[in-house]
């Protein structure tokens, strides 16, 4: 039983691939964040990943580092993030996932965090600095009832992909590049790797993320995955000074249109 995986299966069943959008909680604006998140969903996002900020985000490139820092400076705490998640999930059936680093969770209390996340209506969590070796200690006792989405990367060997698929709930997050989050100038899609992952997972759906920012990126990965994740490109768009809000929603509409059934492959 997983809200996230059921949702993805349902969409895929209609011939559609899903679009997951990452937003940093409380960015760019603490007061109007819930409205932004709902507008993003209305523009076509199927899943929402709400990043709770951390001072030292090791897996993130400069754009999400900046948004995370800005959120901390805006005074965004986990309590605020749980309120956002609750407000958003009250108004949508789409999965809302919380994403962030291990330390704020440990500090909040793992059990307390899991309870609050469930009570707020979160579908699951992504904690990129908790690999499967630490999984049992971190998640086993308290996170049942929440999807725990694990990542595979180009350095992950095949046997390990199988182990990760076994443990992951919701979907497998396929990191398309060895590197941090963010847009890349020499975007070269890593189809070979995505296909390798595809042949070694059996339980989960697979979404591709990291370095996906343009319609071209989406089109090149679309045939090989169950959906794509876009983060930095959206955050970057929100950072633009002039009229960025509507342009951001337009970008999401455009990306989602490419993922609909019958759209050109």
């Amino acid at each position: 039983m997983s809200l996230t995986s059921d949702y993805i299966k349902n969409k895929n069943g209609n011939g559609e691939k899903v679009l997951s959008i990452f937003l940093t909680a409380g960015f760019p604006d603490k007061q109007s964040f819930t409205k932004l998140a709902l507008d993003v969903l209305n523009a076509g996002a199927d899943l929402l990943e709400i990043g709770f900020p951390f001072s030292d985000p090791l897996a993130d490139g400069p754009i999400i580092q900046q948004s995370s820092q800005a959120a901390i400076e805006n005074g965004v705490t986990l309590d605020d993030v749980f309120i956002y998640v609750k407000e958003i999930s009250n108004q949508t059936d789409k999965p809302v996932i919380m994403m962030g680093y291990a330390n704020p969770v440990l500090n909040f209390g793992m059990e307390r965090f899991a309870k609050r996340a469930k009570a707020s209506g979160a579908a699951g969590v992504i904690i990129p600095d908790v690999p499967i070796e630490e999984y049992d200690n971190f998640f086993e006792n308290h996170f049942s009832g929440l999807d725990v989405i694990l990542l595979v990367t180009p350095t992950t060997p095949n046997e390990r992909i199988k182990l990760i698929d076994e443990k992951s709930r919701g979907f497998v997050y396929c990191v398309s590049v060895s590197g941090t989050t963010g847009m890349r100038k020499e975007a070269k899609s890593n189809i070979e790797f995505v296909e390798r992952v595809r042949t070694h997972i059996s339980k989960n759906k697979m979404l591709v993320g990291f370095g996906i920012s343009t319609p071209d990126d989406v089109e090149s990965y679309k045939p090989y995955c169950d959906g794509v994740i876009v983060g930095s490109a959206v955050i970057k768009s929100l950072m633009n000074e002039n009229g960025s809000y509507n342009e951001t929603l337009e970008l999401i509409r455009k990306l989602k249109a490419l993922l609909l059934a019958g759209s050109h492959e």
Partner: protein
Amino acid sequence: MPSKTKYNLPDERGKYGKYGGRYVPETLITPLLELESTYLKLRDDPDFIAELNSLHHEYSGRPTPLTFAENLTKYFNRAKIYLKREDLCHTGAHKINNALGQILLAQKLGKKRIIAETGAGQHGVAAATACAKFGMECAVYMGEVDMGRQSLNVFRMQLLGAEVIPVKSGSRTLKDATNEAIRDWVTNCSTTHYIIGSVVGPHPYPMIVRDFQSVIGIETKEQIVKAEGRKPNYIVACVGGGNAIGIFYPFINDDVKLIGIEAAGFGIDTDKHCASLTLGREGIFHGMKTYLLQKNDGQVSEVHSISAGLDYPGVGPEHSYLKDKNLVNYFSVTDDEAIEATKLISQTEGIIPALETAHAFAYLEKLLPGTSKDEIVIVNVSGRGDKDLNTIREKLEL
């Protein structure tokens, strides 16, 4: 002491009790596993050991002396004080012990490029030195604040052929330099080896750096037994950069009081200090579970020490374990106490210590009055103070 004789850590999961581990993005797991298995093979390989020993002897000038500090002993008029002279190592600090070990490891791993983080610049200089000697490409991440206060070391690294990359994020010190080095490694791990400079980070780094720095304690034990016919009563070292674990570890099963000194900055009653073990709480940071200075919401604190090498909100996971088990006692001294100690040691012994090392010396003021003349105290002189002259001059207004 039965608890000491059983000491055999980390366990196979890289844990020191509940501390340590491998809290990193998935991309780094495979490189860390490769590093671990290569290291475990080489650790007992006679050729590898011989090659490293020869470098220690012929290149960095080991063994370093254990100097009887006659004047300092007279000054306190209590226990005899000996100094383990890591300041006399090539490049001026204990950092070269680890850099040479890891450069050999990088070669066995087939990596062509080295990255490092640095605070005071001593580890950066040691990494740049090892890279120059072995013909490897070297990039060193350094916070902008540290580049200012350790400008001489920036130039040394550049002269040695390394690229020094300024880090402008966060507090622009060692913590942020480490973030950027890890991000570089996530991106380039197929070609690049990351030489971490201290007993921090994800497993196996804290173990590897400890093992390479343990040469300090192994020599010290031989030297003090030769000089005095017995082991010391106390060993004092500043907690930073792996020098403390390096001298403590070979004594961990012995009846010797081990004392680690943290940086109290402006004082532990202010928010400008780096006393992670004294005032931190369990956290996950830079790939390890350890004592961490953090705010109420789990954001990592911006910390302060006059010494760039100690200016870090975390601490090696093995220290966290040793503290909880009372196998090492940890105390802290302030910026001002460290500066006073710098002056004292310079003028009594003719040795200008690094500001990091000065923290260990400053604790003698508290420790020595409670000792007796038939006891022995060893201080690990982790590095020399040339790099800190600008900071010291400003403070003393000489």
